[in-house]
């Protein structure tokens, strides 16, 4: 199949841009492939069958997910999963069908964001400027001088997420914006699913939104995974910051510090716990995290977001086969370059690495 379709071209260009920015990477506690190999074909076929049965219902169900989940875990990962199912399980997802799947996802994203669906413009506007302005006006504003404590808080939340979702499946952190608020620019970092049900962590706030308002234009860009790239001199133009915790405004730094301590403590417990887990348990948790991030989608179909038994059975039958096969021995070995990943996630070929 020739990729003349602009949606597919844009999708592949977004992957290329993302990998270009990625570079070498070392993952914790497992590398890509070590866990997804146990379930991604099963997961992808499940989604794809729903898509084929009723395209519009599938789109409605997909729209219940946050954009990070849709853009990365519901798109290239699913295409790869389908190609694996085709190559090794005798499944038959045609190139045309997979192309249409990508188009459907693009249609969902186009309704959820007010910027390029695949972030090719470097933006991720999940709200209209006016909505962003209205929201920010109701929040207590911290002075730019408070940024250190708030940025530490944000860094702790990010590292906490890595400790509950693992590097490879971190879906709970998202940068969005930039929004124009009066003559200023506002960007926002949202942390969600902080109360990690998979790990039975309770009594923590579930969502934190941090709004940063800047003077003048800002050099700030996001890619397909909603990770932002910017330079530290951005902070020199910071005007003010607002924080929402579970949609309630935070109005003093003592509370920010208390939350930082709370999340740090749980993060460290998590790292110790995970570093002590046998690989089989990490694989199980990884699969559960992946299905959990799609829970709203499954709920839409009145289905459980618990992984199907076949995934657990594979761990029993195959043991550590895939865990060992994709083990990160050398960072360089694992980063074959953008052409590799573009081929890997391209529906027009059978390449699965």
């Amino acid at each position: 199949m020739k990729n003349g379709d602009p949606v597919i071209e844009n999708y592949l260009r977004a992957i290329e841009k993302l990998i270009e920015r990625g570079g070498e990477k070392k993952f914790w506690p497992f590398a890509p492939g070590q866990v997804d190999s146990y379930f991604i074909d099963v997961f992808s076929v499940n989604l794809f069958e729903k898509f084929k049965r009723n395209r519009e219902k599938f789109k409605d169900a997909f729209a219940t997910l946050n954009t990070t989940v849709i853009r990365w875990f519901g798109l290239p990962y699913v295409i790869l999963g389908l190609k694996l199912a085709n190559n090794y399980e005798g499944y038959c997802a045609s190139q045309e069908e997979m192309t249409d799947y990508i188009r459907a996802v693009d249609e969902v994203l186009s309704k959820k964001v007010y910027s390029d669906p695949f972030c090719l413009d470097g933006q991720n506007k999940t709200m209209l400027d006016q909505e962003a302005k209205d929201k920010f006006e109701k929040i207590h504003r911290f002075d730019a001088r408070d940024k250190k404590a708030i940025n530490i808080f944000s860094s702790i939340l990010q590292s906490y997420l890595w400790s509950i979702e693992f590097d490879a499946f971190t879906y709970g952190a998202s940068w969005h914006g930039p929004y124009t608020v009066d003559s200023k620019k506002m960007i926002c970092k949202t942390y969600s699913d902080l109360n990690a049900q998979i790990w039975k962590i309770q009594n923590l706030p579930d969502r934190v939104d941090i709004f940063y308002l800047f003077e003048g234009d800002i050099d700030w860009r996001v890619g397909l995974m909603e990770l932002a790239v910017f330079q530290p001199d951005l902070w020199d133009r910071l005007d003010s910051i607002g924080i929402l915790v579970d949609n309630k405004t935070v109005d003093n730094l003592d509370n920010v510090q208390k939350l930082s301590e709370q999340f740090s403590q749980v993060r460290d417990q998590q790292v110790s716990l995970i570093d002590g887990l046998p690989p089989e348990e990490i694989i199980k948790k990884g699969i559960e995290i992946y299905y959990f991030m799609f829970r709203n989608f499954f709920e839409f179909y009145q289905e459980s977001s618990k992984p199907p038994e076949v995934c657990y059975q594979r761990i029993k039958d195959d043991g550590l086969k895939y865990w060992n096969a994709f083990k990160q021995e050398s960072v360089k070995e694992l980063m074959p370059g953008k052409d590799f990943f573009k081929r890997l996630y391209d529906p027009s070929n059978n390449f699965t690495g």
Partner: protein
Amino acid sequence: MNKFLLHNKDEKKRVVKGVVASKGSAQGSVRVITDLKEVSKFIEREVLVSEYTNPSYVKAMIKASAVVTDFGGITSHAAIISRELGIPCIVSAKNATKIFKNGDVVEVDANQGIVSIIKRGDE
């Protein structure tokens, strides 16, 4: 003996190049962390040098004047956190953890992607 004539090839090197993940510059004393247990020893304004970082390294990063890692791209843990903290960060600096030793005073030029030793810890 000429102070630059060190036995180990890596130890002779006084400059390491890497990829800029967060621009800026800083000077400070090196603390190489290869084991999570060493994170608690990290002192305010030291330069964190590590192979890569896992979530618990953030405790050291929030005290660091700069971060240098052997591995990683501009979307690695170290890069993401350094940008949020507004501190210089150089990733993919290859053998930084072997070349730099605790107590070395270094200059991190994260505009050019270069880390240079100003003074060896044992000099």
